[in-house]
């Protein structure tokens, strides 16, 4: 009889030990705590709604379809900005790392630019690129660019020089050395930069929308804030987090597909 209880105990412990399960349990506990606190202290809804109200709002937004157009606009801003940042970051980073003239002239400038809060440039982009999607893409691209660029340069510098020597001993052309040795060698660094970059791109798009936009999740937050719809703001936040998590997960999948050897190196 006691053994039966013990084995049930062990089963429960094993179930809780699964990372996803323990994470879900933590979230549930926090939500319950939030619900109980808000109801117990009688906090007004326009200050902090209980999670049940937020969940209802998330459901409503989904069913009524209000969120869809905003979600699509923000997602396209993020993806366009991110792709631009990736292409520019990869080419500029390679140029800086491989061509000494650029390293001496451009790289100090780029490093100095890093200390400038790029978000502060968003109002300017609104003037230059207009009220539409373009100014948000530029903001997202600029903010996402730096982590990608810096990682590409670091990755290019970290390459085992004997790989290059080996390629040279075969009489390989500059292009062949780049595409067969340098580029794949620095993929782990590139993906590390991209993972940070995608999150930054989401941030850039949202800030761009805060400054001025008629559609997009950022503008929806501003609209709902103006009408003191706090549950509505939370609902948008949920969709935003969802976007960030999914984009990040996609990149993680790419990393383990195309930079699998580095993941192995990190664990052993």
């Amino acid at each position, binding site marked *: 009889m006691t053994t039966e209880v013990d084995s049930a105990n062990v089963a429960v412990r094993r179930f809780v030990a699964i990372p996803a399960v323990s994470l879900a349990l933590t979230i549930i506990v926090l939500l319950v705590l939030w619900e109980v606190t808000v109801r117990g202290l009688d906090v007004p809804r326009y200050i902090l709604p209980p999670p049940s109200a937020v969940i209802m709002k998330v459901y409503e937004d989904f069913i009524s379809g209000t969120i869809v157009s905003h979600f699509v606009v923000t997602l396209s801003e993020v993806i366009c900005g991110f792709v631009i940042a990736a292409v520019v970051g990869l080419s500029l980073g390679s140029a800086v790392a491989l061509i000494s003239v650029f390293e001496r002239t451009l790289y100090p400038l780029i490093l100095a630019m890093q200390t400038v809060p790029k978000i502060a440039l968003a109002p300017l982009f609104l003037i230059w690129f207009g009220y539409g999607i373009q100014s948000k893409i530029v903001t997202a691209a600029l903010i996402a660019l730096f982590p990608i660029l810096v990682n590409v340069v670091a990755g290019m510098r970290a390459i085992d020089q004997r790989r290059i*020597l*080996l390629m040279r*001993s*075969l*009489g390989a052309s500059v292009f062949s050395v780049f595409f067969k040795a340098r580029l*794949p*060698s620095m993929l782990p660094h590139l993906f590390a930069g991209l993972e940070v970059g995608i999150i930054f791109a989401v941030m850039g798009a949202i800030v761009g929308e805060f400054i001025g936009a008629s559609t997009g999740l950022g503008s929806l937050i501003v609209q709902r804030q103006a009408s003191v719809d706090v549950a509505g703001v939370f609902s948008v936040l949920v969709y935003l987090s969802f976007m960030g998590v999914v984009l990040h997960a996609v990149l993680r999948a790419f990393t383990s597909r195309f930079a699998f*050897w580095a993941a192995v*190196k990190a664990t052993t």
Partner: protein
Amino acid sequence: MKGEIGRGDRLLALDEMSRDPTSAFIEARDISRTYVAIDGSANTAVLPTSFSIRAGEFICILGPSGCGKSTLLLMLAGLLAPSGGEIVVEGKQLCGPHKKFGMVFQDAVLFPWRTVQRNVELPQEVLGIPRKRRVTKASEMIKMVNLSGFSSKFPHELSGGMQQRVSIARALSLEPTLLLMDEPFGALDAMTREQMNLELQRISLETKATVIFVTHSIVEAAFLADRVFVMSERPSTVSHIVDIEIPRPRPLALMSSDQLGKYVGQLRALLGSMESAL
């Protein structure tokens, strides 16, 4: 006394070279290498050095660490231009990497994103050899280094010794006339190292490639080489050349024999005399 023998050998080699330059496969004529340090001062790694190597010979370059062995090897590979002198390969001056030379480094230097098969194919890929031919050739080379069945593995799935075999297969894939090896077994444990020495001996005899093998292990040099080039401390030169007059292939048991011990002692004395001279 022993030093005298070495010098005599070297003079003999130079003499032969001047008599009949066509008999040499690769010749170094007074090659030297000087690095310019950041402060502008010249730093000589290799003093003017001359030697001549016949086709099919197995040469070991032996010397204290940091003596410029690797610099010498890079010059012979055509990857580093000598500051003075010239290297002549089959009657032609060497200027730049030679596609009939295969290179093996201390670490395997494999590309971790490529399978064993694709790593071995790399040199042929760079030279633009058609896919079908390079796949066949690579499989053949993988078989030669006894790694059949590991073609689809990635480097991180292999042991250090196996990785080094892959890099040897890669170097052999272009059927090199000269194999340049820079302390290739230095990072392996003693047992694996002996095994690899045996395999390298077999491969060099099978392919009839000339091998220039840099090492700081005296026993390894004596066991493998037809001739051992002993280098002096930096700034260095080939100070002695010792003929190992034991027919190849040599069995592993030779490693602990008096016959080899005699040469090991001679080489050790040569290296020792240089240290005391400093």
